[in-house]
Structure formats: C-alpha cells, structure tokens
C-alpha cells in the first residue's frame, strides 16, 4: 500500500481550501445575504482507473482531502480494501466497503466515518452540510444506482462532494436552503479523461425530471430506496431544502438569451475565483446546445479559450435561463448536427447526404446520464438513431404494442 501521510501536497490542498473558501464565501455573499459554505475542500482530483472504480476513485479523493493527515494512496489499494470489507456482494463498491476503506487506507484516531442512508435528500444533505462545516471533511455521495458509463453492468455512481452552499449556517439552524453543491465526478465520459468538476444548484441536485442524486434501486440491498452518503462523523437531524425547484417545461428561450444567462451566472457567482473554474477568466461562450427541448430541457453553453475545444461549460434552464450548474472536464469538442447526420448516414449505408427535412436531429440526454455529453437523436426513414459525442451510432426501434 503506497500511503504518504501529511504530504506537502495535502498541506497545499488544505491551504488552498481555506483560500477558496474565502473566495466562494465572498462570491456567494453577493448572491444571498445569508449564504453559508459548509466546506470547500479540493482534494486531489482523480478519475476512475477502471469502468467499475468510481467508488475507489472517490475514496482516493476523500482521504486526500482530509483537513489534516491526508493520504496519497493508490486507487488499486482502495479497491482492494473495498473488496475486503464489502458487505453487499452485488455492488462493485457498497457503502460499507467504501466507508471501511477510508479507515483502512488512511486511518485517523478521531475519525469514524458513518454511512448515512436517508429516505429523503433534505435530511441527508443537511447532515452533509452540518458536518462539512464542522469538521471540514469532504463527503462521499452516491448519486444513484443506474448505469452511468459505457459498462452497463456497473450501476452505482460515487462522487466526492467538496462544497455545499446553504443560505444560513447549518450549525445552529435545523432548516437551511440548499443553494449549490460542488462535487468531483471520477467517471468522465471517456475513461482516462480528467475527472469532471461540477458546481450545481440545489434544485439541479435534488429536483426536476432527472435530479442528480437519486435513491438506491438495487435489489437486494439494505439501502434500497435510500439516499446515501458517507460523512464524518455521527449524524445530526435537520433539513436542507430547495427553495426554487427546476422548471421542467415551457417555452424554450433563444440561444442568445441562454448564452447571456450563462455569462451572467459566471460573473454573478464569481466562478473565476473558484480554483476549479478559474479558466472562465479567459474563456468565452460558444454557441449553446439545446438538450431535451420538450421536457427537462437545458442549454449546454460551452466555454472555450481558443474558440475550438472546451473544458468548461455552464448549464442553464431552457425555459427561464436560470443557472443550473457549471462543469469542468477534459478538453473536448461537441459533435455538430452536421457531423451527427453524417455518422447516421454512414450507419444507414446511404450513398447521399440527407436532404433538407429528410432527417430530424435533436439533442437528448445520453444513456450514461452525463449532462455534458448529450447525444444526437436522428429520426429518419422510420428509424431513430442515437449518435454519441464520440460518433458511435445506436439504433432505437419503436416498440409496437399488439392491438
């Protein structure tokens, strides 16, 4: 096991965290008069080294983000510990295994991590915010148990929460408004890409058609139907509710308005002062991409320094332009409609390009669920094709119900 305690690097992270906390506090004070930041610990960022290793990668980031005596560990060692301590065998990483791995690979005399499994998000997020504020440890959160990458059998999706923003300090206030959550998703769209840093609104996190955090749906499991996070240390009762739920339908706003909303959000939230989003300083928004226009719609507004590839994006609501989240990911270009149609043509082995109105193209959420990698849905010749950002084509056949 390769463990380095109290490394210079982890001290650096801690000092950086304090600075960033101040920045974000200042930034968010402009948004809400009584904003409180539970914590902002940027642990060492790691993406998963295997398609089933979002849990070990999260564990690796959690122990790197201890406020003191942080550890730099090898992801394989975290996984080995998880497999040793796993209680429910139908998980690649179950909550008990991940919790035990923290103490195993980076033990602390005073730390005794607890698995929080709650029937609702508000009580879970309150506990997370309360203890992050109190103890300054990051939180391992289970976003859900549905497929989230190209390996369908892998279900659970672990991330490291590095910041929770509430309207008032959760310490001393049993009910707070959940305003923002910042987390690091170790499962990028392409294995090997950097992990994705996401800064999302409370509404995006917990409400809407496709909330980011969903309950466990594994069977059998003691956690079934529960929202799960691993928090240091014991539970405290309270609620972190969402003030303004997401707008799910309505009239789609123009692209220009979406672009303006994205720019305003960057400035208003002072995201350039957040280490993960400092690149916004030099970046300019590209043409917004409309995803899920009919319901649960959002504009994905890429930001680029060189006006070509993007490693930043802001997501705003498609119907009112409200900020939903910002993300930092590995540099990429987004597949254009023309390129998607060409991929579809090749898949259908058509000799000539589609004629105008012969094919309908629209962007929809990807099967893997990342809002930053939407797919093109091409409808042509009674067929529906989905074209991923990598140009991979899948065919969807309409199921016919016997009369």
């Amino acid at each position, binding site marked *: 096991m390769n463990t380095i305690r109290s490394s210079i690097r982890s001290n650096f992270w801690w000092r950086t965290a304090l600075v960033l906390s101040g920045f974000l506090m200042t930034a968010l004070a402009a948004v809400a008069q009584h904003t409180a930041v539970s914590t902002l610990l940027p642990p060492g960022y790691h993406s998963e*080294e*295997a*398609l*089933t*290793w979002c849990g070990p990668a999260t564990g690796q980031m959690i122990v790197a983000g201890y406020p003191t005596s942080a550890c730099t560990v090898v992801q*394989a060692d975290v996984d*080995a510990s998880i497999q040793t301590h796993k209680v429910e065998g139908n998980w690649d990483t179950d909550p008990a295994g991940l919790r035990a791995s923290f103490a195993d690979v980076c033990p602390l005399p005073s730390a005794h991590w607890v698995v929080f499994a709650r029937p609702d998000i508000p009580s879970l997020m309150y506990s997370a915010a309360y203890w992050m504020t109190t103890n300054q440890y990051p939180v391992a959160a289970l976003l859900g148990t549905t497929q989230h990458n190209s390996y369908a059998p892998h279900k659970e999706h672990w991330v490291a929460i590095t910041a929770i923003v509430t309207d008032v300090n959760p310490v001393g206030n049993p009910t707070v408004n959940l305003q923002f959550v910042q987390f690091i998703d170790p499962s990028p769209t392409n*294995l090997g890409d*950097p992990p994705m840093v996401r800064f999302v609104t409370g509404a995006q996190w917990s409400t809407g058609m496709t909330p980011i955090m969903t309950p466990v749906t594994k069977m059998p499991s003691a956690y079934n139907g529960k929202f799960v996070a691993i928090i240091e240390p014991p539970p405290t009762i309270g609620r972190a509710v969402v003030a303004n739920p997401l707008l799910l339908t309505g009239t789609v706003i123009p692209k220009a308005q979406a672009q303006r909303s994205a720019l305003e959000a960057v400035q208003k939230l002072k995201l350039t002062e957040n280490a993960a989003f400092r690149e916004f300083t030099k970046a300019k928004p590209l043409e917004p991409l409309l995803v899920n226009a009919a319901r649960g719609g959002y504009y994905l507004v890429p930001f680029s320094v060189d006006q070509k590839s993007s490693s930043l994006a802001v997501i705003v609501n498609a119907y009112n332009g409200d900020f939903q989240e910002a993300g930092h990911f590995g540099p990429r270009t987004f597949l254009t409609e023309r390129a998607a149609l060409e991929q579809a043509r090749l898949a259908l082995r058509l000799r000539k390009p589609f004629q105008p109105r012969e094919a309908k193209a629209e962007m929809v959420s990807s099967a893997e669920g990342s809002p930053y990698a939407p797919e093109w849905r091409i409808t042509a010749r009674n067929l529906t094709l989905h074209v991923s950002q990598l140009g991979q084509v899948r065919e969807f056949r309409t199921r016919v119900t016997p009369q």
Partner: protein
Amino acid sequence: MKQMSTSLCVRWTRAALSVLALGLALCNPAKAATTIDMATGVTAGVGIASDPVNANIYYVEFNGGTLKRIHITAGCDLTSPATCPITTVASGFTHPEDVALDLDHGLAYVTTRDDLGTTGALWRVNLAGGARSLVTFNLGAPHQISLDIPTNAAYVIGFDSGKLWKIDLTTGAKVAVMTGLGHPVGLAVTADRTRAYVTEQTPARLAEIDLALHVRIRNVVTGLTSPFYLSWTDPAQYALYLVQRNPTNNVLRVDLPSSTATPVITGLPFNPSGIAVNLISGAAFVAADAKVEKVGLATLPMGEPVFLGVGNVPSTKIVDGYATTDPGYFFQVKDSPFGGTLNILGNLSNFRALTATHYRVNVSYEGGVPTPLTLSWNTYHWNAVTGVFDLTPVAPVPGPDHVYQIPADYPAHAERWFPSFLMMRWPSGSNGNGHYTFTVELFKSSGAGFVAVPTPANSLTVLVDNSGFNHDVVAVRQHGGSPLSVCAIVTSGTSKFDVEVTAYDPNQHLLSYNVTALFGHNGSSLVAFDSYASHVDAEGPHLWSGVTNTWMPAAGWQAQCNCAHTFYLDAWKRTIDGYNYLLEGIAHQSITIDITSGPGTLPACP
C-alpha cells in the same frame, strides 16, 4: 543473411502450414544459424507478437509511438533485408512497451509507459482499423503483457510499481497479484495460471511467482544482464526464451526444471527487448533497438525432447543416423548404425502436456515422402489388481488416421508400462539399408476424429545396415612360409605362425575382429585383434571396412606347446538394435603342431 553461432546446430526443412511437425535432423554442432532483418530503421523496438495464422508480426516502437505490422508474404523473408510489407496499425502512443494479440476478437493490447498525467496505461487496439480505447491506467510503467483470454484478463508487469497486475479486460479493474518486485520487466504466465515468471532488473534475475499464494517461490536464474522480455519456447512450457539487452545482446533458453540458462541466440543487434515464437514457420522474431530480426528456430536447442531414444541410445546421441554414446555409459557405442527391430521411445508425458491424446509416427526413406507406421506389438502393463505386469497388445486406432492412443497413465504413472515411453517397435529395413527419418505428429480427439495439436519441431534419423559381412580364416602358415593345408601336421621348422584373415564389411561398418588360437585343454592365446576404435573415420566419416586376406600378426604368432591348434576368428559389425550389437561372424581353421626337434622345438601341452 547473417550467420550466428549457437550451441547446437540442426538442419531444418520448412513445412507447409498445415503440417505442424517440422523436420529436424541433428547435424554437426559446429554449424551456424541464420537471421534475417525483417525491419530496419526501427525507432526503439520493444515488444513483439506473432500471428502465425495470418502470417503477421506486430511490434511497437518506443520512440515512434507506433504499433506496426509486418505481413509475411510468400518468399519475402528468404533474403536479408526482407521485403515484407510493413504497415502502421496505430500511432500516437506515448512510449509503448509491449503488444499482445487476441486474434479471436481481432484485438491487440498495448502497454504505454508514461501517458501524460498517468504512470502508464493498457490500451485495446482494433487490428482492423487501428481504433484504440483505454483499458486502465496508473500501472507504474507497465511493460510486458500476458493475455489470458479465457478469463478475459491480462497480466501486466509494472516496472516502477514493482507490481504484477491482473487486469479485467472489460472493466479495467486491476488487482496486484504480486508486489515488491525489483523493477520487473518481462513476464510469462503458465497456461494453468498457477505460475508467473518475471524478469527483474534489481537485481537482475528471473523469479518464479505462485499466483495463488502471491509469493515468490524461487529465483530461477540470477546474475543476468539487463534481462528483458520472456517467451515460452513451446506449448509444453518447460522452458523460456529470455532476452538480455546490451552488452550481452542475446537470448537465453532457461530450462525451468533444471534452472539452467543457455545462450541460444547470440550476436543480436543493440538492445534486443522482445521475442515472439512462431512454431508453425519455425522461427523466432526479436525486436531490437533499430531492427526486427527473424531467427530460425531450427538453430536453437529444443526445450523438451520428442524422441527420447532408440533402446538404450538417447535420441541426441544419434547423429547422421549413427549412434555414439559416451565413455562411462553402460552401453557405449561409436558410430553404430541400426538394425533389427528398434524400440523407439517417445516423450509420451510431454505429449500429454501438449494436450495431445494421440500420436502418429511417420517414416521416410532417404528423404522420400513420409508415411505413417501402422505396426502392432506386445508390451507389459501393470495390473493394479493382481499386482503383476500383464502382456498387453499395442496397435493403432482402427481407421484411416493411423494414430496411437497415448495411455492415460502418462505422465503421472509412466512406470506402469514396461518398457516405459515405448512409442513404436519398428522392424528396420523395410526398404533395405539406408537413412530412415521418423517424425511425430500429435492429435487430440475431436468428435469422431482427431485434430492436430501444435507439435514441437522434431525428427529422428537412423541409418539402417542389416547386411552381413565377409569373415574367414583363409589360411595358416609357418611365419613367412607357404600356406599349410587344412589340418596339416607341422613337425619341423619355426614354431611361429601367421594367420590369413578376412573380416571385411563392404558397408564399412566393421566393429572389430579377433583371432584366437585354441589348443589343449582350454588353452588359448590371442593371435590378432583390431577394432574401429583404432580406425575411427579411417575411410571417411563413420567408416572402416576391416581387413581382407591379410596375414597377421606381422611378427608371427609364437606357439607355446605341441598340440592340435584351432585358429578362431570372431568378428562383429557395429550395427545395433539399441541394446546390443547384432551381426557377428565366426570362422576357424585347425592344424596340429608337433615340433620335437630343431630350433622350433616345443614342449607338450599340459
């Protein structure tokens, strides 16, 4: 074409792809091997893999960042440099270290040492289009790969991490099955997944790892020089080829049971790294810093023997068809041809290890077309119930395949057969005297028939000489005088005698002759003796005819007493059946010596 020295030299014939057993004839050990430059201008070649089915060789270039393919077209690799087409399969790798092939799925796997932001990765490459995808990363400077396709896994060695990883090829999940290795580089895993062999550079040695217990069992060989990649010599997995980089620039063959390392390919270009064996084409391919080289496997010592021997003569002691065993061995022969019925012993245990259930023995006469043998014989097999050896018939499996079943007792209980390892009993000389070459093909049952099992290159050539020879005591005379009549009574003159002898083999395979004078009551005296030991290669390699109509001894033989005397000739050829000399010739002639006066006067015999 370059010449390269090896410790043992054999002569090969290249077989058709469908024929897995290759002809191998042992020849003079002093001969040299050949290599061919398959690719030049290589930018730091490291890992290499062979695709014998499609006649392709794949290699990676560390500096070039490429995976390349050499396609071996007909005749393109017969002269050096070769003219085989080379294409780039995939490029843009960051310091690739090794390539391994999963031909069933049209894939290659490539390790890269230090991709940006990682400590090295394992990639999957589509051999058809070159598209690649990441399997996993942060392996700690990964080097050699050993694929285990049946379990969808790869074993990869990490130079910096000191770990041996087992990687799930679908998910990329990895487990360190061994840690604490000293800058490991090369890797070979047994087919049963119980053992891994790893070259380490700190210190330079070859380690044997128990994959179940995750422990080092032993250091097979120590004191190596910049050891690099490994390859099994053949499917039996009893021996490894181990590449050593500069300054030795050679390949060792490491025999695992005996823990011995023998240089088998020397004089390689600077910094050889990888070696891939293609048994079908009888070649090994070595990736070096600036070249990819082809080395004829015929030039290398074999890992395990196919033929064990003929009778008491080990197979490797039969050269040019003649048997020669060493002084001190209980059955010492020199330049002996074969005759009679030969017990041909085969490595039935190793055949089992090669997954074979049946074997076929072919024989060709003087380089002609091999034909399968369909002979039957009786042998003994231990009856565990009665506790005795029972006479047991052996015969080929009925049908057109001419194969013999390998008894299930092998390899665990070879002792239950007497003699053990008896593969064929062959009455020699069906086509007369000459060279007969045996080859073995291996098979395993498949439905109602048999399918070929890759067989190590093999052949055994024996020279058959079943002919008799001339032998006679032609005449007897008093020393320097005229021949005496048969049964003459000599009463005067000298008591020294000459004997005229013929002991002559037109085939020049005479072993020895001796002439003895017999007299009185058990009296005897050696008159003359000679043997091949005094005439080795006298008339050419392996040849000595003997004598014809020759008076001996030169100074005459001194009689000792008066009595009837018989001059007795006993001559032998060198022909053996593996256990004994076979061809003897005897003759005699008698006279009576009764010289009672004069200078040759003799006493009466007791």
